[in-house]
């Protein structure tokens, strides 16, 4: 009877450690969720989790109107012509990021509406309120890094 109790206790302890450990990793990964502002201060990106992956969409633009048309900016540089009337506000520019380890999210892409190009991308969290976003071509060496700061809605 004592042996049975002991094995049950071990099972519970093991399950608790497993669940608790998993949640700690989950919490680390979810630090990406929130509102971020690129270094040029021209936009704000809301990163959220959908399923097991992380996505980021434009939720604010410093200059929301196209200077030529005087209407809300749209994705006019998209390769796919059917997308060129889609508003930039709400557009998902970060896609499919997975948390790896050591404060790194990878396997994702970043879209640059300025030229309609999708780049491979890796995100590193330097501090709790700063992201290092590197878009690259093929290998990480051929790329450019930007710093995004975390902001919160007042």
């Amino acid at each position, binding site marked *: 009877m004592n042996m049975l109790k002991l094995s049950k206790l071990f099972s519970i302890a093991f399950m608790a450690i497993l*669940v608790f450990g998993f949640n700690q990793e989950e919490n680390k990964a979810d630090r990406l969720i929130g509102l971020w502002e690129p270094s040029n201060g021209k936009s704000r990106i809301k990163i959220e989790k959908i399923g097991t992956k992380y996505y980021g969409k434009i939720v604010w633009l410093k200059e929301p109107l196209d200077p030529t048309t005087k209407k809300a900016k749209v994705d006019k540089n998209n390769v796919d012509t059917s997308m060129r009337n889609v508003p930039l506000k709400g557009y998902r520019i970060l896609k499919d990021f997975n948390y790896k380890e050591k404060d790194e999210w990878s396997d994702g892409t970043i879209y640059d509406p300025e030229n309609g190009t999708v780049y491979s991308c890796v995100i590193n969290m330097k501090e709790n309120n700063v992201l290092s976003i590197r878009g690259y071509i093929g290998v990480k060496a051929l790329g450019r890094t930007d710093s995004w*700061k975390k902001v919160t809605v007042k």
Partner: protein
Amino acid sequence: MAVKSLNNLALFLFLIFSAPLFSQIDSTKTKEEEEDYSIYENVESEGKIKLYCNPKIFDLSPNRFISVGYDYIANSDLESSKQGAYLSDDKFSNPRKTSFVNYGLRLNANIPVVSKAKILWQIGGVYNKTNFEEKKIITQPVLHDHDQDELMRSLNQFGLTYSNINTTVFKPLSEKSFFIFQGMGELNGNFGFSKNSNSPNLNTIRTSASALYGKRPHDRFQWAVGLTRTYRAGELNYVPVVMYNYTSINRKWGTEILFPARASYRRKFNSRSILLAGYELEGSSYRLYDTSFSPKNIELRRSELRLRLDYQRQLKGFVWIAIQAGVRHNVNYNIDSLGDSNKDFFRGFVGTQKYVMLNNLSLVPYFNLSLNLVSP
């Protein structure tokens, strides 16, 4: 009974710790259409972060990581003075005139070493080969011992190689000001990599450098001023340099100017195709090995102004094609001797040092085609 309690506890723990997982999945059900974006107008930073000046402005022609090109210059006439004909009156008193075409491969690489908001540092390399093919001797002096014979023999046989290793540092000083440093070591001459070619002498490496301070008032304009030590005129010179990159409000046109090296008017058709109209000053000093010129340590001071149209277009993804056509105007094709000291000298705009040989090249069309891997 105790076992049952423990089982309940396990279930409780599992539900407590796994709750966030389910809540994340549930969050995906939010309808994006219903999101009120106005709430993101007023935000506050979580801690301070310094903003840095961006190295680019909107719609500049794309930077090239790797470029592979082919350059062709149509039949040009070369008129040469006799060696030692220094004075302008004697300049072409006993000339030899010939014609030739130039063609060759052009390779260029620029790799970012550090690419962060607070500093950008890249290193690069260039390899340009210019082959010569003499077509016709137009004027042959009676005495038939003209030094152009020797010059053309050497150029026909070995061609000219231009190579450099360069580095560029872009350092933002604030959100709107920046500093740029460019340094370069060049090794040029009539050498090559084949068995019978001349071998380059590392003592002939020439160094150039530029330093600029500038401002970027907004996303469509940046300017900078500075000083450069350059061989673009074929020989060593120190000149002021001005950068002026501008994009119009409607983002249809702009300028890309780094005077005196290059200046272009840019017309943007869309985000994947642009046309540049302008010029580039190309040049350097080339060591001529294995020639029978009597003075020692001979250098060809080569510089040309390329007036051109340059059409650049995305082929697929990050691969762009550039088609360039225009005319080549000769700036300098004279020959100097560095003498026994074998040290380069500064002639500048007012120096009185004599050339060993004076050359004139005719204005001719040229064409350049390149495939480029462009940067984000």
